[in-house]
C-alpha cells in the first residue's frame, strides 16, 4: 500500500510539472461534465418524473455512478489505460518487479485532472440529498456510503475485466466500452426505469442494480427491508470473477517486439 501512495505522489509530481496544462484541463473537465447534468435537468422540465423517480432522485443516482467512475479514473487509471501499457510494452517491466501485478498496474498511472469530476459528483450528490426530504437515520447514512463504495468497486471490476480483454487482442477495444461507458450511461438512471430484461442483466451480469437501484429504494424510503440497505456489499462478489479472468488472461500475454 505504501508503494501505491508513493507512486501516486510521484504521478502528481509529474503532472504538476505541466502547471498551465493541469489547471486548464481541470477547469474544462468541470465545464464539460456539467453539461451531462444539464441534460437531465432539461429532461425533467418536460416530464415531472420518470417511472416514479423525480429529478433529484435521478441526480442522486447519477452522481453516485459518476463518483465511482471518476474515482477509478483518478486512482485506477493504470487499469483504465491498460491497453497503453500493453501496446507500449511497459507491461514487461511490471512483470520484472517482485510485486503483485494488479497493484503495480494501479501504480502505473493516475489522472489527477479527473479529481474535478469527483468533486463535482459530490457537490451534485449534496444538492440532491438536500432537496430530497430524506428521513435520516444511521442505516441511511451507511447505505449512502455503501453505495459510493460499491460504485467504486463495480467500476474497478469492470475496468479490470476490460483490461483482461487486452491480453487477447488489442484490436476492437470499442467492444469493451459497451460495458464501461455504455454501462455507465445506463446506470446513471435508476435501473428500475428500464425494461425487465435490462434489470436482470444489470442485476446478475453486471450488478449495477446493487449499486444504485436496490439501495436507492431503501435510501428514499420506498423499500424498508435491510437487505436493500446492505445489498451494495454483494458487489464485492463481482470482483472475484474479474480478478480470475485477469490472471487467466495474463498467462496468454505475448509481449511486443523490440
Amino acid at each position: 500500500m505504501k508503494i501505491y501512495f508513493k507512486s501516486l505522489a510521484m504521478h502528481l509530481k509529474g503532472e504538476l510539472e505541466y502547471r498551465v496544462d493541469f489547471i486548464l484541463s481541470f477547469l474544462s473537465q468541470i465545464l464539460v461534465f456539467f453539461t451531462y447534468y444539464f441534460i437531465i435537468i432539461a429532461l425533467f422540465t418536460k416530464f415531472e418524473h420518470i417511472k416514479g423517480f423525480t429529478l433529484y432522485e435521478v441526480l442522486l443516482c447519477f452522481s453516485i455512478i459518476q463518483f465511482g467512475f471518476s474515482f477509478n479514473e483518478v486512482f485506477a487509471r493504470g487499469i483504465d489505460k491498460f491497453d497503453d501499457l500493453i501496446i507500449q510494452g511497459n507491461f514487461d517491466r511490471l512483470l520484472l518487479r517482485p510485486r503483485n501485478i494488479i497493484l503495480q498496474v494501479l501504480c502505473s498511472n493516475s489522472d489527477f485532472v479527473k479529481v474535478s469530476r469527483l468533486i463535482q459528483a459530490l457537490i451534485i450528490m449534496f444538492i440532491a440529498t438536500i432537496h430530497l426530504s430524506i428521513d435520516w437515520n444511521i442505516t441511511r447514512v451507511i447505505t449512502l456510503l455503501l453505495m459510493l463504495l460499491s460504485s467504486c468497486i463495480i467500476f474497478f471490476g469492470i475496468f479490470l475485466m476490460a483490461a483482461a480483454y487486452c491480453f487477447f487482442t488489442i484490436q476492437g477495444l470499442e467492444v469493451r466500452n459497451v460495458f464501461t461507458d455504455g454501462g455507465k450511461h445506463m446506470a446513471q438512471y435508476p435501473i428500475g426505469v428500464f425494461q425487465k430484461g435490462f434489470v436482470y442483466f444489470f442485476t446478475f451480469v453486471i450488478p449495477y442494480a446493487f449499486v444504485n437501484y436496490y439501495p436507492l429504494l431503501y435510501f428514499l424510503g420506498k423499500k424498508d427491508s435491510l437487505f436493500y440497505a446492505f445489498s451494495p456489499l454483494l458487489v464485492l462478489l463481482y470482483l472475484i470473477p474479474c480478478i480470475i479472468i485477469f490472471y487467466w488472461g495474463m498467462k496468454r500475454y505475448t509481449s511486443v517486439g523490440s
Partner: protein
Amino acid sequence: MSFIEVKQISKTFRVNKKKSGLKESIKSFFKRDFIDVKAVEDISFSIEEGEIVGYIGPNGAGKSTTIKILSGILIPDSGECVIDQMTPWKNRVKYVKKIGVVFGQRSQLWWDIPAEDTFDLLKDIYEIPEEEYQTTKEDLIYRLNLQDIINIPVRQLSLGQRMRCEIAASLLHNPKILFLDEPTIGLDAVSKQVVRDFIKKINKEKKTTVILTSHDMADITSLAKRIILIGKGHVLYDGSLKKLQNMYETEKYVSIKTKDKLSIRNKGIKEKTKTKEGYDLIIDTRYITISELLNIVSKKITIDDIEIDHENIDNIIVKLYEDYKI
C-alpha cells in the same frame, strides 16, 4: 547442474498477416489471416555463474524473445528453464528479485521526475533495507558518475546519461544475473566505453552473471569471452569468440612501407595495391602464412615498416550470417 540451464525452449507467436494498402486494411478488418511465426525453436544452452555471454544474431532472430523467456516475462510453449534452481515464469516474484534487466530501447525511469525519485520507489518495490540501499546507491552513483544528473527530470537527460541511470536502476537490488538487451544502442563512443567498463567491473567484483545482446560487435568483443549465435530461432554457434574468429578470419591486411618496387605472385595474395609509400596486401591465410609472406617479401625488397591488421569483427559476422543463410 549449471547456474542457468535452458532446455529445448520453443515459442510461437500468431501474427496478423496483412498486405499494404487501404483496401487490404479494410479487408483484414473483416477477415483476418494469421500466420504462426516460430520465434525460437529448440533452444538449449547452459551458463555458469559469473560468466559474461554475448547473445548475438540478426534482427528478428529471437534474441529478445529468449531474454524475455529467461527473465520470466514470456511463458514458452514448451521446454524447460531452470535458473538458480527456479523456473522464471513459475516463481516470478521470488525470481525477479535476483535479476536485473536493461532494455536499451525502453526506459524504466519515470519520464517527468528525477531518476533519484525512481530509485527511491524501486527501493520500496524490491524491499531493499535502508542501509544496503544507501551503500549500493552511493556506489552506483560514484561508479557511473551520476552525481550531477540524478536530480534532473529524466526527460531532460541525454541518451547516454539516461542509459547510465537505467543501468543503475537495474542494479539497486544487487541482482545475481544481469540481462542487457542492446544496452549501448544509440550511445556515443565515450558513453559506450563507460557502460562497457562498468559491466566488466561489476562482473569481476560481484561475480554477476551477464547475458548481453548487441548489434555492436565491439560490445561483444570487449566484454564476452563466449558467444551464442542465434538465427531464425535456432542456436547456430555456442563457444568462444576466439575460436569463431579463427574459423572465419582468413584474411589479413598487410601494409608495407618501402621505396623499392615489389613484384610478387602467389595464390595467397588476393589483392595488391600500390600506395604512396609502398604496398597494401590482402592475404588469404589458408594459402600463405604471415611468416611465409615476410620471407618472400624480405628477400626481394628492403622493408622500411610493416603493419598487419586483423579482419574487422563485423565482417566476420556478416560472413557468418551469410554462411548460415540467416
